[in-house]
């Protein structure tokens, strides 16, 4: 018998008539294409967060550079000490919503880089 995917069987919980009509008249996804595309993108983001492949670390990237050792250490700290816990995830989420504004400030006033770099370096040293 033909293999049924979980997504296909799940349609039985939405509308059985759709399952019948999809089979006999073909499935047209043009109406839902936009939702599917957005869903796929967000699934990818979710997967990257869980797998630790999420490269976002805005302030550290702005101060040290995208592939700097310091940025990698901070990413590692986020993945190992923040992401596994609910409070850590909330903190990371808050950080991601605030950090683009801080990065804008750093770009506007480069002098801010000096205290931020000092604080981050102190934090990295204390983790070693």
């Amino acid at each position, binding site marked *: 018998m033909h293999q049924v995917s*979980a997504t296909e069987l799940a349609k039985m*919980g939405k509308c059985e008539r*759709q399952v019948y009509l999809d089979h006999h008249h073909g499935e047209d996804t043009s109406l839902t294409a936009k*939702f599917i595309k957005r869903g796929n993108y967000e699934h990818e983001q979710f997967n990257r967060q869980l797998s630790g492949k999420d490269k976002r670390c805005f302030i550290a990237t702005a101060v040290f550079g995208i592939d700097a050792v310091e940025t990698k250490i901070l990413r590692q700290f986020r993945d190992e000490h923040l992401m596994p816990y609910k409070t850590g995830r909330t903190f990371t989420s808050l950080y991601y919503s605030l950090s683009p504004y801080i990065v804008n400030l750093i770009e506007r006033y480069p002098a801010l880089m000096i205290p931020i770099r000092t604080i981050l370096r102190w934090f990295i040293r204390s983790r070693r």
Partner: protein
Amino acid sequence: MSFFIVVVVIALYWWIQSRRKPKLTPYMLENFLKITDPVALCGKPDVVWKTHDGTLIVGDYKSRENQQVYQSEVIQLSVYKLLVEKTQNRPVADYGFIHFKNRHMVKVQLMNEKEIIELHQRYWNVKDGRIKPCMTGTKNYCRYCSHNDECCNE
């Protein structure tokens, strides 16, 4: 002085949190699974979590913030549970998690193997026209259905 106390409290909280073992760790991410027994099913669970004691829990990500759980999602997650149960030699929880965009997660009680087999049989009966299919109870769902015209004519 009060600033010092706040710093000490934050540092202490951080230290306690970092020493706590995580409750769930990702065991499998978007792995394609398929089975032929008891019925032919396949799927790609978004995430399978592993608890301290080695029990696996299936999870599915939904890109919306509204935390309502629909029957179709319970079916999807139940199929994932059966796939994980039959392909991994580990105990699988009879509940799963639905993860929402706002990072909230909802615990969902899943269908058992017998119920999935019955639904699978009904699926084929509906598809082959052996039984009259039920219509959705939510008219809003029809708005995005490409069969809207055919459905009204039948």
